[in-house]
């Protein structure tokens, strides 16, 4: 198959795939329907403080697996839904930030700086339209960069890196994530090694399941989804419960009379373009690096926009340029975050973790450099799925352009759902989602054990992302080590033999040392909070 035929096959797998139902004799493809469903749920969830894209993706994944099963046909509907959620939540997070000064997602913190003052001036509708326009523009730009960069990067990796270099590259990625997430690189590294250690329990190649103490409970290993949901979601829920219990307060919501004309004219949109363009480039650049959060992208986008701005209303006092600069930057992170996933098989953020989990659970698609083998003699089904995934992302963008703004306008009510009511429901929802996957009450105990681990990590400011990424990558890393060792003929210095793998290893050490320097206070509290989380 030629490149064009692969692209076409990917597009057709989505738009001409199995139909969910017929309308006037025309079948509605299930993948398109799932993207739409995920997108709407994503906006609603993003607009609900306390919920965010990763929460929704985590809870939906076990349900989706139960519905679609574990056949390759399930890949595109499930991944399409998760992509829809990811994109919906990105725009949805701006809604409560603008209307109630409460960011729906952490990266929307900076949207409150200008969005809420605009709403106070009676321009809430205009602020929402600005946020939507900037967000969807940034997101689309970032996706286009992903579509062009990921295949090239993957081809280069596959062509030039052997087993040893791949193992060293995984180590470099882990070191980078551990170093940049959180306040202390050493704690990040501890988290990463802990993830590798726990992933080793009950796995391996020998007939005896290692580290299982000979028990049946540990012999089959730690259930992947339960562990990830426990650490990432339930740990956060427990942490939030304790915080809310300590801090029983309710925010008063005041109503402001809104202006009649809330349109965002073409002239106004044109004035926003330079801010959106610069922020989209900044966000895409930041997003392509694993582990760096969208809050940093939003802060850099906002700071750059502030320097460019010469309008009558300064940044921070309710100017649309401020909203646009922030939203374009944080939204353009989501597409670029998938560059390391698709080209290297390394998840760079929590959203990507769930895409990899979905792919690993279903099977038939292993995100990484081997996906982009443009073989002409035989069909590479993984490549068709990759182009199908790109198609679902574009579909979600089109939906976002057409109806995203309208949905944003009606989901403001979600910000009024009290967190103390919502989070206990999230707990039960997550436990139920885990149960339908495992069908065993023991899964609850596993989930709670990992929830407590996640809670302790948050309390002790040990970042959870390096733990989860290392946990997921442990199998690949061990495999790469074994293969490289075998190819090197049992040479114990196999990792240091190639100049490239030596370079990756030295770079890992350099990254850790660089980020271990004493840090200056962060420019804003959102960054500080994300760094310390």
């Amino acid at each position, binding site marked *: 198959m030629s490149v064009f035929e692969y692209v076409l096959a990917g597009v057709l797998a989505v738009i001409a795939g199995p139909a969910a139902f017929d309308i006037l004799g025309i079948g509605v493809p299930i993948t398109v329907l799932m993207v739409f469903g995920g997108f709407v749920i994503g906006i609603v969830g993003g607009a609900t403080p306390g919920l965010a894209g990763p929460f929704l993706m985590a809870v939906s994944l076990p*349900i989706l697996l*139960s*519905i679609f099963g574990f056949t390759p046909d399930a890949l595109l509907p499930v991944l399409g839904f998760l992509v829809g959620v990811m994109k919906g939540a990105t725009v949805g997070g701006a809604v409560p930030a603008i209307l109630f000064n409460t960011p729906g997602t952490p990266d929307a913190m900076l949207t409150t700086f200008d969005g809420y003052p605009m709403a106070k001036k009676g321009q809430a509708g205009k602020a929402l339209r600005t946020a939507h326009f900037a967000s969807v523009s940034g997101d689309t730009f970032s996706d286009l960069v992903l579509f062009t960069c990921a295949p090239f990067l993957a081809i280069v990796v596959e062509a030039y890196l052997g087993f040893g270099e791949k193992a060293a590259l995984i180590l470099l990625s882990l070191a980078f994530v551990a170093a940049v997430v959180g306040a*202390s690189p*050493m*704690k990040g*590294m*501890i988290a990463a*090694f*802990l993830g*590798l*250690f726990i992933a*080793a329990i009950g796995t*391996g*190649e*020998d*007939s*005896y399941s*290692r*580290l*299982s*103490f000979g028990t049946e409970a540990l012999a089959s290993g730690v259930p992947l989804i339960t562990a990830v949901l426990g650490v990432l979601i339930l740990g956060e829920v*427990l942490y939030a*419960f*304790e915080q*809310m*219990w*300590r801090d*029983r307060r309710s925010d008063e919501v005041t109503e402001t009379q809104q202006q009649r004309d809330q349109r965002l004219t073409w002239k106004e949109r044109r004035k926003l373009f330079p801010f959106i363009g610069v922020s989209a480039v900044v966000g895409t650049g930041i997003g392509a690096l694993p582990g760096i959060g969208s809050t940093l992208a939003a802060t850099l986008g906002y700071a750059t926009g502030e320097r460019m701005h010469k309008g009558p209303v300064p940044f921070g006092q309710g100017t649309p340029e401020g909203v646009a600069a922030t939203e374009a930057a944080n939204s353009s992170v989501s597409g670029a975050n998938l560059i390391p996933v698709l080209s290297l098989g390394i998840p760079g953020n929590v959203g990507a973790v769930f895409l990899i989990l979905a792919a690993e659970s279903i099977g038939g698609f292993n995100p990484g450099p081997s996906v982009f083998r443009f073989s002409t003699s035989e069909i590479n089904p993984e490549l068709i799925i990759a182009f199908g995934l790109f198609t679902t992302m574009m579909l979600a963008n089109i939906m976002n352009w057409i109806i995203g703004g309208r949905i944003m306008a009606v989901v403001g009510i979600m910000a009024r759902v009290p967190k*103390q*009511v919502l*989070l*206990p*429901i999230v*707990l*039960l929802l997550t436990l*139920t*989602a885990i*149960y*339908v996957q*495992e*069908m*065993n*009450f023991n899964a*609850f105990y596993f989930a709670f054990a990992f929830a407590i681990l996640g809670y302790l990590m948050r*309390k*002790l*400011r*040990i970042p959870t992302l390096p733990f989860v990424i290392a946990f997921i990558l*442990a199998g690949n*890393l*061990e495999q790469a*080590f*074994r293969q490289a*060792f075998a190819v090197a*003929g*049992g040479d*114990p210095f196999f990792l240091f033999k190639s100049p490239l793998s030596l370079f990756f290893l030295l770079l890992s050490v350099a990254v850790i040392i660089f980020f*271990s320097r004493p840090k200056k206070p962060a420019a804003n509290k959102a960054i500080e909070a994300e760094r*310390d989380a």
Partner: protein
Amino acid sequence: MLGRSTEIWIAVIFLILGVVAAALWVPFDSETPPIYTFRRQTYIGDAMLPMVAGAGIAICAATHLILSFLRRRDDQDAPFDRLTGLFFLVFLGIVAASFMLMFWSGPAALALFGPTGDEPVTYRQMRSTAPWKYVGFVIGGFVMVFGITSLIEGKFSARRALTSILAVAVLILIFDVPFDTILLPPNGDF
């Protein structure tokens, strides 16, 4: 970063954990050592990954210990206090009660109010039949959601009770009603 003494404690605990894991747990609980030779071929054994991970934890913890020692003394609050203990005591009590009720309410309700006849009906036979399949999930789920909400708010209210019941009902609508193959907790265990 947390206070200096807390960071030192974290480093010491992980240092001990890493050393114990790498030096004791892994060698005694793996079939093959980190590197072994079989039929004149040298392989990486099952102990390699966890031993590297354990040693990595220990090395990073030791480095963190040194860095923390070099920090200036401060008087930041410890991350845990008596309130943490109190909260988790009540919280885990609610969760344990909800798990117990979720697991046993269905079989108990069937034993008390189920059909009677010559042949006793087991819960396994009725685990996919309404209303029995909902009893455990509704009671356990309600206790969990309502209990935690009330704990956080510090009061019981009828409104929150209603919200909790509605939430459980919505979850049944999501997970159970559309699918024949999915079993709500705890029905898969019977």
